[in-house]
Each structure stands twice: as C-alpha cells, then as structure tokens.
C-alpha cells in the first residue's frame, strides 16, 4: 500500500514495508501547495495545486506518479460574478463507460468533466441556488463560501451530496438541475436562528460503504449522524464535551457504527484538549467516545484539517497543520510517528496497489 500526503510544500508518497513501516518514496510538486488529491477507479492520480501566484491547476498521472500531465482547470463563465480562487476537492464517478470527474471550489461551486479534465462545466443549479446570498465564508480568513465535499452514488448516477462551508449539506436527485438543503437536525450556534435551513458548516461528511444511507459529519458545532441519507441528522456529539469541534473524520469501511475524529479544545483555540493530541473513537454510532492517544505527543498544538485523515481496513493515518504525520495499524489503539518535519498537511490518502 502507498500513502499520498498533500502538503503546502509538495505531494509526498510513502510506501509501506512488510514490517508496516512507512518509507518516503517520492516527492512531487516540490514547494507547491497541494489543494486536493484523488485516485480514480483506473488508479489514475488527480492532483490540484493552489498556486498563490499562478492560480489553481489540475494534474493527472496515469502511471502512479512517474509522470504528471497538466489538464485544464475549472473556470467560471464571463457572466459569473466569481473567479476561481482555490480547489478543495476532486472526486470521480463512473457513469456507464464515462468517468465523470468533479471539482469543488472556492467560491463555492461544483464543476464536472466528462473528458478527463480537458473541459469543465459548472453546475449552475447549485451556483445559482436561491439561498446563495445567505452563504458565508467558511474558513479562517476566507471571505467566500467553498465546496469541500462531494459524495456520488453508485445506485443513482443523478444523486449527489455536497458539503459547503458555510451553507450546509445540499443534495440533487436530478443530476444537478435542482438542489435541496438537507440540514434538518443540525445546529448552527453561530447564527441567530441555530436551526436555519441553510447556513451550516459541515466541516466534512463521510458515507458508509456498507450502508450508504448512513452519513456522518464532523460539523463546526458537533458531530452528527444520519441513517436516512441526510434527510435528518442526529446529534452524536461526545456528551463529556471532548469530541465536539474538529475537522477530520474517518469511518470504518465495514461497520457504519465506527468512527474516528480528532477534536480541538474549542473553535477559538484550535489546539488539542489540554494540549494532548488524541483521536476519539466510537464503536456504537456515537453513543460513547473514547480517546486513543497511545503514541501521540503532549504537549501538542496541532490541528488536523478536514481531509487530513484516512482509513483502509485497520490502518489509520492523519497529518497535522504543524507538519506531523501519524499512523496506526490497529484502528488507533497505537500510533507511530512517520514524520514530524513536514509542511502543513492538507490531505492524506491510502492508495491500494
């Protein structure tokens, strides 16, 4: 298995040895800020670079990183009030013989390509949603909302789920023509109306592989779980107040009741509780949360960003804003340090070989 680590200064590729150690094998795009990484079903790697000077760019590799080719980047139309600021996520969906690619951007929009990135189409039904004027900037220092999560369905190619900060979860069942906000049950404590239909901040959303009706989300205001494909959300935040605020989340591939989060003490501090880095785990759909911290440091001042945790079987990995990278081979019971000298880690992805 390989591990792709997207940082603010390049894309690092690690290989797992037979002794379960991770060895640095390659560095691509050295010095460049990685915005997103995705592997499609053909084992092609898709990489977004959010250049500070030159604008967002998209690359693909058909040979596991031996070479990369730049493809086109999404563009807002001349009629649009927006210009592309950054790329937050890349996803793919197989529709018959076509592989459709999706890119989520800031300002918040969803683009798709049916020609492997040669051209991109903006899904205007979402960009022009009637609630658009109420969407807010979602990141620290961000003055425009951004689309960071795309979930596609294998059952219904016209069904998509997206997460936008700060607007919430939206779904389409007609291939993007119409979108419905699906935020019932979420709380937005930063709004006057905490149960607003739109305006939520779903930091990340995960969908169960075994039971696609089950969605989880690490939200700005807690942890939520849905058993009806997002129509309603149930608050499963840690009652002891530990696993509440955070960005990253992973759920078990084979059990829709198991999840891992890495909380911060609070929104305004954004460091671990009592400066002890800890992963929190539930095996009962969020009724109880326990901390897994064996091998993780104290003091620590790390925040784990939304795409910086991944799971494959019993293997877990996460990277931090301070450039630390940790892995576990036993679902988080024990953690091992891979590196403590990276740049900010934006995304991590296990790659099967």
């Amino acid at each position, binding site marked *: 298995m390989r591990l792709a680590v997207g940082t603010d200064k390049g894309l690092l590729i690690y290989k797992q040895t037979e002794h379960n150690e991770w060895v640095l094998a390659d560095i691509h795009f050295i010095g460049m800020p990685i915005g997103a990484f995705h592997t499609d079903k053909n084992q092609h790697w898709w990489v977004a670079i959010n*250049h*500070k*000077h*030159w*604008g967002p760019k998209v690359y693909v590799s058909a040979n596991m990183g031996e070479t990369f080719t*730049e493809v086109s*980047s999404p*563009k*807002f139309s001349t009629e649009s009030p927006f*210009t592309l600021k950054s790329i937050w996520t890349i996803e793919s969906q197989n529709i018959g013989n076509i592989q459709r690619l999706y890119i989520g951007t800031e300002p918040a929009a969803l683009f798709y390509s049916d020609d492997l990135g040669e051209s991109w189409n903006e899904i205007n039904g979402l960009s022009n949603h009637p609630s658009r004027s109420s969407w807010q900037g979602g990141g620290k220092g961000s003055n425009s909302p951004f689309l960071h999560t795309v979930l596609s369905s294998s059952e219904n190619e016209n069904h998509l789920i997206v997460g936008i900060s700060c607007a919430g979860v939206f779904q389409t069942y007609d291939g993007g023509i119409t979108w419905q906000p699906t935020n019932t049950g979420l709380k937005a404590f930063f709004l006057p109306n905490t149960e607003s239909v739109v305006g939520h901040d779903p930091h990340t959303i995960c969908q169960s592989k075994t039971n696609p009706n089950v969605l989880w989300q690490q939200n700005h205001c807690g942890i939520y779980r849905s058993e009806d494909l997002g129509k309603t959300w149930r608050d499963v935040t840690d009652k002891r107040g530990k696993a509440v605020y955070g960005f990253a989340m992973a759920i078990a591939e084979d059990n829709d009741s198991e999840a891992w989060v890495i909380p911060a003490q609070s929104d305004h501090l954004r460091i671990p509780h009592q400066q002890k880095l800890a992963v929190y785990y539930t095996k009962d759909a969020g009724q109880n949360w326990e901390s897994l911290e064996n091998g993780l440091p104290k003091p620590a001042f790390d925040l784990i960003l939304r795409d910086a945790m991944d799971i494959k079987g019993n293997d877990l990995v996460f990277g931090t804003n301070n450039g630390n990278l940790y892995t576990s081979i036993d679902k988080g019971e024990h953690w091992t340090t891979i590196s403590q000298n990276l740049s900010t880690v934006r995304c991590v992805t296990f790659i099967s070989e």
Partner: protein
Amino acid sequence: MPHVMFTSALKTFFPNLKEEYIEADSIEALLSELEKKHHGIQGYLVDEKGQIREHVKFYIDNEPYDIKVHTELKKSAQIHIIQAISGG
C-alpha cells in the same frame, strides 16, 4: 519590438520560456502572442476574467503596469513579468 522578460519561476511550468522580442501594441496583444508561443501560459498570468492575477506583476520600463496609463506599448518597451512578493 517590445522586449519581454520572465521570472525564472515560470520556467518550472514552461521550460522553453526565455526573454524575447514580441510584436504587440498592448498588454492584451502581448498575452495573446505569448499564449500562441507557450500554450497555457495565459492561465498562469491572468484569471478567467482576463484580469492579471493578484500576485503577478507586470512592469513596463521598470514602472508597475497600470491599465489606465499604459494603454499602448511602445516599440522600445521593456516588460518584466514577475511573481509578486505579496504572493509569498
């Protein structure tokens, strides 16, 4: 003919880029000619609305480019295309 020079950082993406003389009477025309010679470079210098990117700077005869002032490029113009310090 205007003489155009580039930050070496752009050679990461366009290895064949080097200073050259290009027939152009405006920055817009210059960008168009550059795109013909170095496919894709326009997208590195301007956004999809045609505006020079926030952290890219054009200098004409050592003065920052101002679209209101530099409506026409002189034949003797020296143009530097630089990555702005503001971009980090």
